[in-house]
């Protein structure tokens, strides 16, 4: 592990850059994903069609293709930004489709009888949504949404691989190709960096899941 410890500052820097990719992508994909999910469950047919189109497109295209299309396609129509911006944008577009499906499946898992019961005791639409449907829906959304978010953490490595400088992955790449370090210790360091993000996140998710579980 010598090469990793000697360059520990670079690894820490890379870890922080990876975290900032993750945070931007998390906020963006949750907002966009919930918006698309709202389209998919809305009573307005064209919005539903738009939602399905979005999900089918981004769920079936590899993240790497989305990233290439953003980074090389957008400058062609006059949108010139940093690779960091394009990387986060691609990750947000891709992840939003999975967030949408997780949210939608959570909403759909609330039994129709719950809403019917709420209406039958005289709650109006807003009240039924606020007091009966949403509290249950939000809790059932947690496990699938959590898996999507953890998958997104791991996918941030692809954003680094694609040319965003200074994150964990590209730090490893630079140390190997430019400075000729051995691949094994360096990439073991990179792997540990990612495990430091994904393993605690997975454990945290399990705790939240257990707390929010509803007996049905």
């Amino acid at each position, binding site marked *: 592990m010598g090469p990793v410890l000697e360059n520990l500052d670079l690894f820490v820097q890379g870890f922080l850059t990876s975290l900032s990719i993750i945070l931007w992508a998390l906020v963006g994909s949750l907002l966009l994903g919930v918006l698309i999910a709202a389209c998919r*469950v809305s009573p307005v047919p064209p919005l539903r069609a*738009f939602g399905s189109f979005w999900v089918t497109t981004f769920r079936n295209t590899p993240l790497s293709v989305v990233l290439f299309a953003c980074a090389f396609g957008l400058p062609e129509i006059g949108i010139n930004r940093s690779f960091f911006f394009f990387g986060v944008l691609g990750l947000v577009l891709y992840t939003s489709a999975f967030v949408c499906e997780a949210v939608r499946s959570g909403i759909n898992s609330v039994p129709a009888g719950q809403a019917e019961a709420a209406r039958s005791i005289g709650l109006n639409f807003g009240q039924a*949504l606020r007091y009966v449907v949403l509290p249950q829906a939000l809790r059932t959304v947690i496990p699938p949404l959590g898996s999507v978010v953890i998958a997104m953490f791991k996918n941030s490595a692809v954003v680094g691989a694609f040319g965003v400088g200074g994150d964990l992955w590209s730090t490893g790449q630079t140390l*190997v190709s430019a400075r000729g370090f051995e*691949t094994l210790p360096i990439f073991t360091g990179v792997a540990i960096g990612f495990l430091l993000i994904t393993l605690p996140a997975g454990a945290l998710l399990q705790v939240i899941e257990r707390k929010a579980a509803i007996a049905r």
Partner: protein
Amino acid sequence: MSREEAVLFDAQGPRARRRTTIGTAVAVVALLGLAYVVARRLADRDQFSMEKWGPLINPGNENFGAVWGLFGEGIRNTIIAAVIAMTLSIVLGTLIAVARLSLGRAGRIPLVGLVELFRGLPVVVLVYFGVRVLPDVGLDLRDWPGGQVLWGLIIGLTAYNMVIFAEVVRAGVASLPRGQREAALATGLTNGQTMRIVLLPQAFRVMLPAIISQLVVVLKDTSLVTFVANYDELLSQGESIRRNLDNPIQTFVVVALLYIAINYALSRLAQWIQARQARGSTAKATGGGDLVPVRDGA
């Protein structure tokens, strides 16, 4: 609209229907406006020209043959890597799951560690290990048919997906009614026979949709090799076409459409099998539907 989706709103009366109609009109105008802005922008930058689209869609174009030759090769290489990685993942994943189910508490610990380790790593890191790190530590696969890059990619994808499958198989076996195992043991089958003849075949039936959905993930993840080394799968081929013809938007749209076509067909197949199983009684009794949304990966 299916029944389950009706949870948010009731069957609509005349007023709600009128509101929906108005909403529809507004949404159509907004979406058309959005499409117009995008199309206008593309047209202003000359992105609809035959100079850029010709090699991709016009069979008369001088580059058409070469371009689709590259795409064809790319699709073939993508499918080869995905199918081999998938097969190995299923076999190894089943072995891990069976070992985990039949070993005692102490014996399980290293397997649980293995599962957590490979599940926690990004696929692109595992692919890098397979392609770049393995030769450095003495595992040289250059002489294998397909070479180091293909097998490194397969090893990376397999390492990640076999543990996903181990979890799927474990959940599949656990979801079977307890009586299945008890009855098999009562007829005098050994533990191993019970697993092989009675439990696994039923579990696999329940898991088939999950397996096909995961194949979509593996297919998409083959494209990660583009960042690591040269293996001419679909995305790399798109990259070299873009570099030669300088038409990124057009090329990546076609690449994306090719992936979508293959993966959408696979997803529909999974849905169809799931719907067919839901009609039979075993899948319902075992709660097989819960197993489907596995899709995990890049």
